[in-house]
């Protein structure tokens, strides 16, 4: 509850700050302060400091379900956002004139994230998703002078609206199909037997809509274009925090509402997972632009996260939180470096290790994490996902397929590493002035975090059992 309220309030604060504060850099600090407050408030609610649960208590009519699992996920989200602000905050300032509005919108998105990770009714799921999406449409188009940004915004918007329609259709059928006439996801009275046709139809609609949100194939088509067209800072935010929130919503819905009839819809998820892994990994191979490659990589990673939806057990949930942390930190880190680059193609990274060894090292850690090399968080999270999928005891071939695609992923991630370390730079790769000491330190902290998750993931998983 703390998180939802504070994010909404801080969004408003940010908006007003634009009126009162004229400085272009000040909103960043305000936003950082805000996210720290939210983070701490969230931890307080989680009782992470051991001083008892501190939270705003509002009677939500059980429309929200606040558990330590949800809160630990939110903690990860806020921590990642903090990292995002620290690394890329100054780049938000460069997107356009309305800096404080951008920050405000980001806080609204976070509000949406908080909603979709704690919702207990389909209504709040719907509203949450919309709160999460609408600011993103705006942020995507925020680089107004850039036609690519415009185009991305329109594509995103049209397809997003389309998916909203599908989501609602799904909700309608689920509502119609269950005998309770209820929107509460844990009150649908799903028996063990075969689902009624209406529920089945609604379920498929929901799968489609949520797959769209998490950019799982074949509903991923917006992703590369939007991620590519959006201002890079916002791509960074969208492809990480927003995406993992989508997964969280996905898992919550299917665990609570349809967990009992899992065998009846697992085939859908398997189909989507395999297709996502295939399209994400294979298409990424040919990309020349790192930004676009990361877009496809985010699809590929989504394929892995789909395994959590496939498995829906405790390990899967732990794994999802881990995945959220590892994937977000790594991707935010890479994007933070990418933004500073003069050239977004892979060749643009040539020789980075010469001029900026620390940056190159950190980027390497991030890329290794995304590949899933041990000692990095990426490995641990993938490992949890695979374990979770294997624990179901069915379709073991799925995880073999998954690892084979993971092997392909090495192909494109390592191209960047090769460029940085083994190739000579032809032009100036990076604007030296942009790389402040603080930036380097933050990046290093991110890298250390990745390794910390890889070595001892229990410090995050531990939150879930507070």
């Amino acid at each position, binding site marked *: 509850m703390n998180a939802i309220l504070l994010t909404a309030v801080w969004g408003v604060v940010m908006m007003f700050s634009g009126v009162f504060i004229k400085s272009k850099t000040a909103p960043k600090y305000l936003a950082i302060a805000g996210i720290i407050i939210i983070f701490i408030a969230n931890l307080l609610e989680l009782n992470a400091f051991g001083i008892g649960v501190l939270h705003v208590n509002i009677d939500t009519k059980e429309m929200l379900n606040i558990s330590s699992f949800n809160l630990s996920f939110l903690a990860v989200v806020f921590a990642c956002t903090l990292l995002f602000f620290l690394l890329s905050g100054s780049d938000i300032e460069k997107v356009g004139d309305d800096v404080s509005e951008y920050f405000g919108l980001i806080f609204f998105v976070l509000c949406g994230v908080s909603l979709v990770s704690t919702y207990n009714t389909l209504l709040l799921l719907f509203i949450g998703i919309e709160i999460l999406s609408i600011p993103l449409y705006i942020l995507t188009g925020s680089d107004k002078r850039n036609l690519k940004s415009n185009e991305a915004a329109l*594509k995103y918007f*049209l*397809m997003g609206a*389309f998916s909203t329609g*599908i989501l609602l259709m799904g909700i309608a059928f689920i509502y119609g199909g269950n005998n309770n006439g209820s929107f509460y996801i844990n009150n649908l009275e799903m028996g063990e037997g075969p689902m009624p*046709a209406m529920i*089945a*139809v609604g*379920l*498929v609609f929901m*799968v*489609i809509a949520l797959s*769209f949100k998490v950019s799982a*194939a*074949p*509903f991923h*088509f*917006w992703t*590369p*274009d939007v991620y590519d067209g959006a201002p890079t800072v916002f791509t960074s935010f969208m492809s990480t925090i927003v995406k993992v929130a989508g997964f969280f919503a996905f898992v919550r819905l299917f665990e609570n509402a349809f967990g009992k009839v899992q*065998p*009846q*819809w*697992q*085939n*859908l998820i398997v*189909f*989507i997972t395999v297709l996502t892994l295939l*399209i994400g990994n*294979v*298409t*990424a*191979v*040919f*990309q020349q632009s790192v930004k676009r490659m990361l877009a496809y990589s985010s699809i590929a990673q989504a394929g892995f996260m789909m395994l959590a939806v496939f498995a829906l057990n405790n390990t899967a949930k732990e794994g999802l939180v881990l995945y959220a942390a590892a994937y977000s930190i790594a991707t935010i880190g890479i994007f933070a470096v990418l933004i500073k680059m003069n050239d977004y193609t892979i060749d643009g990274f040539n020789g980075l290790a010469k001029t900026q060894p620390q940056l190159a090292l950190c980027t390497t850690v991030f890329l290794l994490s995304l590949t899933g090399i041990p000692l990095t968080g990426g490995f641990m999270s993938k490992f949890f996902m695979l374990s979770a999928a294997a624990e179901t005891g069915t379709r073991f071939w799925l995880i073999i397929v998954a690892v084979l695609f993971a092997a*392909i992923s090495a*192909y494109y991630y390592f191209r960047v590493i090769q460029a940085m370390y083994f190739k000579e730079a032809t032009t100036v790769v990076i604007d030296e002035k942009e790389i402040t000491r603080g930036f380097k330190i933050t990046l290093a902290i991110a890298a250390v975090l990745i390794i910390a998750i890889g070595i001892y993931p229990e410090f995050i998983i531990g939150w879930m059992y507070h």
Partner: protein
Amino acid sequence: MSNIFKFIWLIPLLPLLGFLITGLGRNFLSKTAAGFVGSAVIFASFVISVLAFLQVKNGDTAAVQYFDLINIKAFKIAFEFKIDQLSSLFLLIITGVGFLIHVYSTSYMHDEPTKDFSKYFSYLNLFVFSMLVLVMGGNYVIMFIGWEGVGLCSYLLIGYWFKNNEYTNAAKKAFIMNRIGDLGFLLAVFWLITKLGTVSYDEVFTAANIAKLSIEDITAITSLFFIGAIGKSAQIPLYSWLPDAMAGPTPVSALIHAATMVTAGIYMIARSNILYTMAPATQHVIAIVGLTTAIVAATIAIKQNDIKKVLAYSTVSQLGYMFLGLGVGAYTGAVFHVMTHAFFKALLFLGAGSVIHAMSGEQDMRNMGGLKKYMSITHITFLIGCIAIAGMPPFSGFFSKDEILAAAFAEHPLLWVAGVAGAMMTAFYMFRLYTMTFLGKFRGTQEQEHHLHESPGAITFPLIVLAILAIMGGWIGIPEIFIHGGHKLEAFLEPIFAGSNAITVKHEMSHNTEFLLMGISVLLSLFALLFGLKKFSNYNKQSDKENTGFAKVLEDKWYFDELYKKIITRPLRNVSLFFNNVIEKKGIDGVVNGTGKFINYGSRQLRWLQSGQVGAYVLLMVIGMLVLFILQLFIKN
């Protein structure tokens, strides 16, 4: 000096020390020092060998274990030496002849640079070491150590003049052909280990252990061992390395290819005689292979013009005789022939070396002739050697060869007929060689003639000693029919072959038959000898025609090398190239790279899905929805 057996480890160790000193010190040692060290260690070994021999003669034998080479539950292989009648006899031959060759070498190799001179001696020492390990070894693995060791040394010595690619090719050929045999040897050892869990002679040859082996086992083991022997002792089909091995310095040819290394196969079979006696099938094969080799090699020798080549083929031929002996169960005869052959063949080679030395490296007999007057000692000793190898009584070769032939006759008269034919050829080509070299007129260049001289003492001394041995060496094995109790060697070796003798059926021959056979073979050989002498005494280079027909076949060594090239070397190379170029590059690597290419291709194709058109995206999504709905609603899990 109560028990010399305590010191037998010195016998191989001394040459090893010599190897290390001359090898490591090749930059510091003078030629004299190197030659001295090299020869002295062999002499010391010889002395100990003699002492050991004397003790063995008193009926003492010993098997000494030093440490475990491999000791696991399944089996144990110890580093052990065995001194008995057989090995002590071989020790004498090896160290004795070896020593003479060392002495000879000090002079023969004197023109080499100091470093290479030292290197040469270190190789020689190492060779002697390996050979000693081979014969002293108390089990097959130790024997194998020496077995491969001599192969290595012969490789090093043949390729001694490594700048010449021909020579290194010969070295390579020798090693590889030996290795083919070694594989057979190894497999036999594996077989023994698998069946018996031991390779120690003392344990393998016990009745209890042999009883564990089926007749198939024994046949297989003996055949495999025989393959080893074929390689090492240059029998058909693995004989062709030996003539090529003449690329090495001549003393090396004498040492390796006459006196010691090639006899390893005979030693090994004699050592395992009991197994062979129990495997008559193998024995028949051995006899036939031996005989074939003896005759084929002899025919080739007739048409060779290189003095060393003739000797080399004669070696092959003589080895064939020894195998014939082994094949017909005349183990003593074979060993006897090994001994006599060591004397006269070393003598012949060294004599040839002396000639070559005098001729400034010329080896073609067509350019020699009339050397008699320039090199009297060499001439006389060489003549003795020739008579000995031709099997004229009472020279050593007569006794040993006769014993083999007698045994062959007892086995089957045809074997004897073929053997005699071979003996005739031997007499013929040896005297062809002798005549072309020493008799007639000198056919070389003026310059060569000017240089002709008798060799120095270090060369002639071994010749003289060996000539004496070539005459008298056979007297320890005079058959019963001449003197009662004359065959001292047989009596000496009796304990070794006792097991075999016990189970073989003795074909007793009447004395008359024996005399008759002896007479016929001697007469025929004498006839061939004289024919050779006559035919080539007026040899003229100009009148020598190009060989045609069968003679050409003989001159070209029955086209064995070409055959190998055609059926082994070239196909193997083609297969390898096929592996490398097709299977490896196109096949296996092609699949691996193809996977990468396929993914790349897929990537290029898949990205066309991402057309940028919202309409197309939605269409694809709708199709996806359709699929999912059908999957969920109409396909039952």
